[in-house]
């Protein structure tokens, strides 16, 4: 059971993500952005939060064109798992692996606090450890988390039950209060809140833990 955590210049949640994966039983490799391939046998790729390439041009834009992201695309096309958190979500949107875009928060403020979130679907290996409609608390820390998509994409996300998490109340202007979405095959999750920062009792927040443990259970079964 192997996880690969991608590391870009400016990533700053990479080690937290590695800790959360390890706690759930994964063996973790840290993979530099210039690498051409993922380690053999990688089950899931974690794209961490931070400020890859200083958020230059657009958040996640330069990271999305790095060599390791070509390997990530091949992994996802083969049906591999991936989770992109915060800046990692921005990278997944910039690669086109998930639809839509993240824009500057509607209130223009950098939001840094724990927020209540609704589990909008349990039909994914990331969220099947929660109860449908459960409200959990996870930290957010972002300036560009305002999820926007065309009406067609919004309808597809709704119709295909691909909205994984919703803010309980508006945080950043995101359409339909979307905090996280799934790919068509439900094996890629992008989300703005940080489950990896809420996955250890010593930190006082544990609501993110189930995301990693349920994933571990699914990978073992697969």
């Amino acid at each position, binding site marked *: 059971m192997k996880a690969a955590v991608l590391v870009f210049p400016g990533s700053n949640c990479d080690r937290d993500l590695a800790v959360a994966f390890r706690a759930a039983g994964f063996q973790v490799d840290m993979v530099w952005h210039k690498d051409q391939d993922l380690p053999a046998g990688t089950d899931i790729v974690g794209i961490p939060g931070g400020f890859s390439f200083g958020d230059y*041009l*657009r958040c996640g*834009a*330069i990271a999305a*064109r790095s060599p390791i992201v070509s390997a990530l695309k091949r992994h996802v096309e083969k049906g591999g798992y991936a989770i992109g958190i915060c800046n990692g979500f921005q990278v997944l*949107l*910039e690669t086109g692996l998930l*639809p*839509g*875009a993240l*824009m*500057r*928060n*509607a*209130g*223009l403020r950098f939001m840094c606090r724990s927020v209540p979130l609704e589990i909008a679907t349990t039909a994914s290996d990331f969220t099947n450890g929660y109860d449908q409609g459960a409200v959990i608390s996870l930290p957010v820390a972002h300036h560009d988390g*305002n999820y*926007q998509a065309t009406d067609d994409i919004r309808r597809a996300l709704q119709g295909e039950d691909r909205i994984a998490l919703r803010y309980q109340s508006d945080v950043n*202007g995101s359409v339909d209060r979307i905090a996280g979405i799934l790919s068509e095959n439900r094996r890629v999750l992008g989300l703005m809140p940080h489950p990896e920062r809420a996955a250890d009792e010593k930190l006082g927040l544990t609501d993110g833990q189930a995301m990693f443990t349920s994933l571990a259970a699914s990978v073992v079964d697969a």
Partner: protein
Amino acid sequence: MKARVHIMLKTGVLDPQGEAVRHALGSMGFDGVSGVRQGKVIELDLAETDESAARAEVEKMCEALLANTVIERYDVELI
């Protein structure tokens, strides 16, 4: 040859930064401003000397990296 790329949010995409600038202008007494859209300008120094080849190359760059065509449109100007 130089190229100047203008990148703007597509019509209909809400621009929170432009809105903030509009509010600031209003509070400074510039009350004749009914809308502000903020974009970016990127200048490129090109080795290419043929205009149409340069334009085609820069448009390819816009599609591949410079603009996020989900929310942005671009306009290439050769100078």
